[in-house]
């Protein structure tokens, strides 16, 4: 073991990455959330990422039952949950075994030694006890008899069963970490008071254990120097910590209120998108209508029905569900009604890796329908901006009368970051194409001259009775038409309508450098990783690297090519084997698009990106 420094100095750090790991029943998600919330309130920038097994309750102590929660906090801008960790809190041997490789050498591991029994070591496939066999000499290991200390702390509290006592040991760990990083326990104690309102002995027990951990850390001589992370410089405002899926749901709530429409969600449960359904179903007080449908197809088709009848209609899913929705999405495109489809991407193909992240649905989003059926495709890039792009998806679908497909992914959907709360009053206006009365010579397929959007005539409006459907439409009357020239005209005008959305979306921007040797291109949920890699390179003096990240995928921003021209090399980075690069290649000729791809169900790591970009830029 590395000897611990004894000076009473405080180390001031810019950022720290902490990972809490234990059994799926050990409360690691709660522990991590409490630490990140407290840090955010202290003024740190934070990013988090939960990592839990697909099994709901995997066998206790098993390697595949390990549940983890990673928190990255900083006094500087934090854009990802981070790669290697500074502190690992391992509640059992399985947690230690599966996460040790993520700990930076020389850094700290806190273990609950009470959990390192022969039985648990066997379950974790340890032949010898790692705490005794010298395999952890590269780390600062803090051994704490956490379970015993928790029991001791609670010996005077009445009315607790053994299970409840043992289960509160996660609060002991949290108390220790709070002390190490100079965090107050107040927020968490307030949380107990609200959460267990009707259960005073549980409040007392958790508070006692939390404080016991805090004081234990304070008095324990083995604890390395306490760390301080000062508040980050963030824009002034009111903040909250938000998960990507919640932000997506809230973006739609805001859009419904702003547009004056009622929100309808038709959805079928699927990992990792279900949390959007869980969130929206709570908000009946805003008049939100949700239908948990019998399948993915009924999810989207009920939304199409609601849209026909005048609601802001959405459906949420992940890759396999999007495949099932394809035909109906084509119908929505054909009848030119507003509809937002959210695809929270996960590892594919087929059932793939449901709890892991990937960007492999892009081409499905673009082309996964029969016939030529272009739609708007957007991609959110951080947990917090899922809010903005859900809002933008709703705005574009209503203003342009075409389905919008919003791509997020498991990484940003389950991750959380601070969100500078946006009041609905400050959000851009949303117009819609509703018509309220019959004008002379009205036809269902009349279009707005600029946007080419048709008008929205909703059942219940006198004089506007009309029929829509999946058969090809006459360009004016909307009646069924098999006329060859009309069909070609309609295919082209539907494409032109999407192209013209370019006139309504912001220009593409670059970060760090407007021209130079290397342009790093990304899209969607990889923003944090790519941004921080290029930022670090700039801090190291590589001023010749620029970065541009796409949120608008179809259509692409108008000025895209002007950015490409200004760099000698271009590298397109994606968590797939190269899908966005195909889109760029079909749109822009004469460029040598290099690729950087990763298909492991994991986000990009900072080091791999920096190394690769450095090589390309020199």
């Amino acid at each position, binding site marked *: 073991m590395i000897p611990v420094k004894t000076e009473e100095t405080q180390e001031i750090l810019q950022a720290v990455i902490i990972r809490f790991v234990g059994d799926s029943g050990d409360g690691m998600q709660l522990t991590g959330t409490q630490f990140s919330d407290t840090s955010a309130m202290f003024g740190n920038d934070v990013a988090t990422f939960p990592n839990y097994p697909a099994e709901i309750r995997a066998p206790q102590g098993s390697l595949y039952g390990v549940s983890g929660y990673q928190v990255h906090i900083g006094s500087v801008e934090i854009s990802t949950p981070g790669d290697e960790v500074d502190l690992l809190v391992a509640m059992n041997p399985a947690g230690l075994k599966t996460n040790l490789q993520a700990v930076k050498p020389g850094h700290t591991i806190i273990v609950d030694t009470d959990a390192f029994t022969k039985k648990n070591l066997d379950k974790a496939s340890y032949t010898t006890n790692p705490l005794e066999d010298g395999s952890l000499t590269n780390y600062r290991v803090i051994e704490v008899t956490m379970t015993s200390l928790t029991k001791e702390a609670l010996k005077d509290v009445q009315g607790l069963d053994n299970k409840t006592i043992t289960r509160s040991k996660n609060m002991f760990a949290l108390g220790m970490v709070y002390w190490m990083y100079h965090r107050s326990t107040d927020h968490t104690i307030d949380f107990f008071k609200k959460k267990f309102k009707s259960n005073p002995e549980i409040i007392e027990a958790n508070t006692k254990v939390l404080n016991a951990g805090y004081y234990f850390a304070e008095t324990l001589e083995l604890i390395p120097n306490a760390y301080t992370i000062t508040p980050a410089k963030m824009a002034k*405002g009111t903040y909250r910590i938000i998960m990507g899926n919640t932000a997506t749901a809230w973006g739609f709530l805001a859009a419904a209120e702003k547009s004056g429409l009622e929100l309808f969600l038709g959805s079928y449960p699927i990992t990792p998108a279900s949390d959007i359904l869980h969130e929206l179903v709570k908000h009946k007080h805003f008049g939100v209508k949700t239908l948990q449908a019998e399948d993915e197809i009924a999810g989207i088709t009920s939304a199409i029905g609601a849209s026909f009848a005048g609601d802001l209609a959405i459906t949420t899913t992940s890759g396999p569900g999007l495949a099932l929705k394809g035909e109906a999405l084509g119908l929505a495109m054909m009848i030119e009604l507003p509809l937002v489809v959210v695809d929270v991407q996960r590892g594919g193909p087929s059932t793939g890796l449901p709890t892991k992240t990937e960007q492999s649905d892009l081409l499905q989003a673009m082309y996964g329908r029969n016939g030529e059926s272009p739609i708007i495709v957007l991609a959110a890039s951080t947990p917090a901006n899922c809010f903005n792009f859900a809002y933008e998806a709703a705005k574009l679908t209503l203003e342009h009368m075409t389905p919008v497909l919003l791509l997020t992914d498991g990484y940003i959907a389950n991750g959380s970051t601070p969100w500078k709360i946006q009041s609905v009053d400050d959000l851009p206006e949303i117009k819609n194409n509703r018509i309220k009365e019959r004008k002379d010579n009205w036809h269902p397929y009349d279009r707005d001259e600029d946007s080419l959007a048709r008008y929205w005539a909703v059942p219940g409006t006198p004089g506007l009775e009309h029929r829509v*459907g999946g058969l090809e439409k006459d360009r004016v009357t909307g009646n069924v038409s098999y006329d060859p020239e009309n069909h070609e005209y309609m295919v082209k005008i539907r494409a032109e309508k999407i192209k013209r959305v370019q006139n309504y979306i912001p220009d593409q921007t670059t970060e760090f450098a407007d021209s130079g040797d290397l342009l790093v291109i990304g899209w969607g949920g990889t923003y944090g990783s790519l941004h921080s890699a290029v930022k670090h390179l700039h801090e190291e003096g590589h001023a010749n690297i620029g970065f541009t990240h796409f949120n608008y995928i179809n259509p692409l921003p108008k000025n895209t090519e002007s950015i490409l021209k200004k760099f000698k090399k271009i590298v397109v980075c994606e968590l797939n084997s190269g899908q966005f690069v195909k889109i760029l290649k079909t749109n822009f000729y004469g460029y040598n698009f290099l690729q950087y791809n990763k298909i492991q169900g994991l986000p990009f790591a900072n080091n791999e990106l920096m190394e690769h970009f450095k090589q390309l830029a020199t």
Partner: protein
Amino acid sequence: METTAVKEYTYKDFASDQEVRWCPGCDDYVILRSMQKALPEMGLKKEDVVFISGIGCSSRFPYYMDTYGMHSIHGRATAIASGVKLANHNLSVWVITGDGDSMAIGGNHFIHVLRRNLDLNIVLFNNEIYGLTKGQFSPTSLVGQKTKSSPYGNTQPPFSAGELAIGARARFFARIGGNTPKEMTDIFIASEKYKGTSLIEVLQNCPIFNDGCFSKYTDKEVREDRQLYVEHGKPMIFGKTKDKGLVLNGLKLEVVTLGENGITQEDLLVHNAKIEDPTLHQMLVRLEYPMVTGIIRSFEDVTFEEREDALTAQVKANSRFTKTDDLFFSGDIYEVK
């Protein structure tokens, strides 16, 4: 829906300017005309009527109605109609579907829409064949039936629409021959009045691919003898001379002749469409002689939208949020200065 402000319509008001393109002699014409005649009797505003269809011959129906309508994709009309109704409860929403559309490709939506009990009207054109794709067997085709896709005879046992529907908790089920427009019109009107999902199975002859499929029940010469048209509260009596009736013998329905063995009208079953227990309704649906038509089941139950609305009102009453800002700025928020 207000009835006072409704103007007087005739069937012509509900006919669109589109030329009807079904095959000559198809029962679909009868259904279309019966619907156009029923609508003026319903006290609805024209703009409040919506027809949603899937794919198949029947599904061309909305194009011929001068109301709001959608000709959608195969099997999904019930799900689309559910969204329409949930978005606006004031609308009178009609689903037009066929045996393949509802019970093959759309089977899942079909059973779930019935289970939920939204206030929808579903008209199922059953012709025991795929017409638009030119003659393959459908989920209601009979075993042994020779079709384009079963040249040596169909080996898949059929669904009975009513049996499946009641099994899926349908509260309203009616069956009617495709050549009896007056009764059909009455049933459409009753279906619109009924609150909940109503399913009307029309025994629809396809003169091209399955001609005569129901003729042993529906032909003019035989139908009074072969069909029992049930009405709530009336005894189950049928036959040209009204001499036949149904009694319950143990667990079986039995046809009896009035006047024989001392049987009088008093001994016959009296139709009760409004009971929750579907046992007798299922027996009526399964009967082959006589083929039972009319409103077989019409049990009044809470609708899905009533449950949803009650819940929403309750949540609204107990909520501290009126605007989304109230939510966004609630709970664990903090200031950065």
